[in-house]
């Protein structure tokens, strides 16, 4: 299981949060009557990038195993494969975490 925080936008007044960029096109798709950057909850504050990591939205990701590729391998080879997958996943998650 991997736990990361992701880029989060929150209201500076009411603490509303969302996990997508408040671009006009996206906001209008999800909140048709909304104004760019305006908080869709209180309608007063502005939705801005959350810089406090403890307040960001987070993701929990389970590790994935390709059973077909591993079925004929020895235990040490399976372990090595798992290490490689974990390393790759961790690197990808770090990129997302720092976005």
């Amino acid at each position: 299981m991997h736990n990361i925080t992701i880029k989060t936008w929150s209201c500076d007044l009411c603490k509303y949060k969302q996990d997508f960029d408040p671009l006009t096109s996206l906001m209008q798709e999800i909140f048709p009557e909304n104004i760019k950057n305006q908080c869709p909850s209180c309608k007063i504050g502005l939705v801005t990038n959350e810089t406090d990591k403890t307040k960001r939205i987070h993701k929990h990701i389970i590790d994935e195993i390709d059973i077909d590729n591993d079925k004929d391998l020895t235990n040490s080879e399976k372990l090595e494969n798992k290490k490689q997958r974990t390393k790759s996943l961790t690197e990808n998650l770090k990129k997302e975490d720092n976005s």
Partner: protein
Amino acid sequence: MSGGMGGGEGGVAEDLLTTKGDTHGYSTENARVAIGSNTQVLTADSTEALGLKWATPTDIAPPTTTKGDLSGFSTSQARIPVSVTNGQVLTTDSTEALGLKWATAAATSPPRIWSFSTIFEAASRTNTQVTAGGATTTDNQALGLYVTTAGDAVRNYINNMPVGTNPSWSQDYNVSTTIYPWTTGTDFDFYAGLGYCTVTAANIDYTKNHLGWKSTRVGSGTIAYEGTIGDNTTETAGSVTTLDTLCNLVKTSTSVKFYDNSTLRQTLTTNLPINVVGGDNVFNSGLTARNVATASRFQIYSWTYEASYA
């Protein structure tokens, strides 16, 4: 001859008024006050030779210039321009020069939230204490209410709910229970929502396909309340500050919106649950009573699911 209205010695000269609308004035002798312009009014003015004049009444003339304008006032009349944004409402604001402004209306409740209230009253509040046990369901349409504490897992759920793109609903599905009291200082996980999670010895795996609310109290610390969704691989969740009385979910094809007592707390768009009944416009509603200040109690009165196909 006397008593006539005509001019004569000591009277008013007959040719004093020359123009339609002229009127008499006087200072030290009779004098003509020439008619003013249209809409002007006769106004006393001691600086004028005759003590009056025709003038435009500045405080009566409307300040409006554009369709939809309003007239406001602070120390004098002033224009309140019509809003350039349709749908805005006139709002009092003491910081504005005229005390008013056009503003977007305050957030409104999602549709149909309050229609559920009678369902809660009729179907819940059983005050039955939860007992441990129950089998794991793999039906991803299940309405779930899961709790773990000190390795003791509690599952209360309804599965075999109608499935398909447009299922027929003959009733509202309700999971109702009360956990009371909780041992002071006990850590726990709590989940209520649509879809199944996996209850492990220690906690709940929220990466499973679901949408709902969860609460955790770990390390005898503060309880965290979060809106949570999962797609069988990844959970996306975020703190929603508090859970209060009435919690609601609104799912569309692009987002899940979390409402707490009619206040929008969070919108998630990634890792949306899959195969949830109803597609767009699924309304998922629950009633909870959150913990008291000591975090020693956690009461869950009911959790109700209803689909809408608008």
